[in-house]
């Protein structure tokens, strides 16, 4: 019978950088949450009255 070697779980993860969150990435993460909140506010009919039908009406005014 051929012997198996274990996967050593310790070998998968670095100790020194275990808790690091790269700053650039963190800014992206938070920035997208902020933008998401703004976007939901701006494009929800109940908040701002925006609707895709109304958007079409605006555009069609330019067609005779």
């Amino acid at each position, binding site marked *: 019978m051929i012997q198996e070697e274990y996967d050593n779980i310790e070998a998968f993860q670095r100790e020194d950088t275990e808790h690091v969150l790269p700053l650039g990435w963190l800014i992206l993460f938070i920035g997208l949450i902020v933008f998401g909140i703004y976007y939901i506010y701006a494009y929800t009919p109940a908040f701002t009255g925006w609707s*895709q039908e109304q958007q*079409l009406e605006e555009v069609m005014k330019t067609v005779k």
Partner: protein
Amino acid sequence: MSKNDNSIYNRALLFSIVAAVTVLIGTIATVFVPMFTEGMHPKVDGLKPYTALELAGRDVYQAEGCVNCHSQVIRPLKADVLRYGQYSKAGEYAYDRPFLWGSKRTGPDLARIGGKYPDEWHIQHFESPQAFYPKSNMPPYPWFKEKQVNVKETLARMDALSFPYTEEEAAELEGATELDAMIAYMQVLGTSIAKEALIEIDESMIEAESPVKGDADAIALGKKLYKAECSGCHGQIAEGNIGASLVDYAEFEPLDTDTYITIANGFEGAMPGYAAKFSKEKIWAIVEYINSLK
């Protein structure tokens, strides 16, 4: 990595439960909650359940994977509305199980194909799309006319959907082919709300006679456009096929404005209108080409 035994990353059951809850939040908010709101179950007044023959056609549409190339939803966008007609309303789809909006337009949108062409157009087009548009990539469907609709199967499907049908309608299925069924389905699509032409041309909107009378360039352009869009129905040399012979038509020396308005507005159920699809110059060019056939 946590050395703490109580960490969620050391407790598989707890981890699984938290993961399940995490994925359910968005699911509940955007799928389950809307399901119970009015807004997700609208129905326009003119909408009727599919007849047995229409349903059989819809099933063929599904079996053939038509949804791979054709959408059935017109967006509230200018170009969509100009090309395909009024934008789609939620209430037009109340009997669609499943919805067939699609996600690709290798072919054109079909949401308002109903009444756009006569039945004969569909018969010939399914047989050979290339007879209408030589460069079309749509597969021909010659087997539609050979295959009979399975009456028992279709009625079982009607029952499953609780769609009403009369004895006569059931009898109508007898001997019907898949082609009949497909045409019935095509012709009902998008007809539950009254059609309103986006642009309706009348004499006041156009010149009293062709501004390019006898112009060779205009005739050449008209011929090119005719070959691309009109020759399927009116024939390669305008000798007539599904549509009238335009050679004969030209013999009558019709008024330019009459020809123009016919091309622009079309005839419901017989010929599509081109007012939104062709500029004035293009329509006048076709008028001149037709005049030149005399």
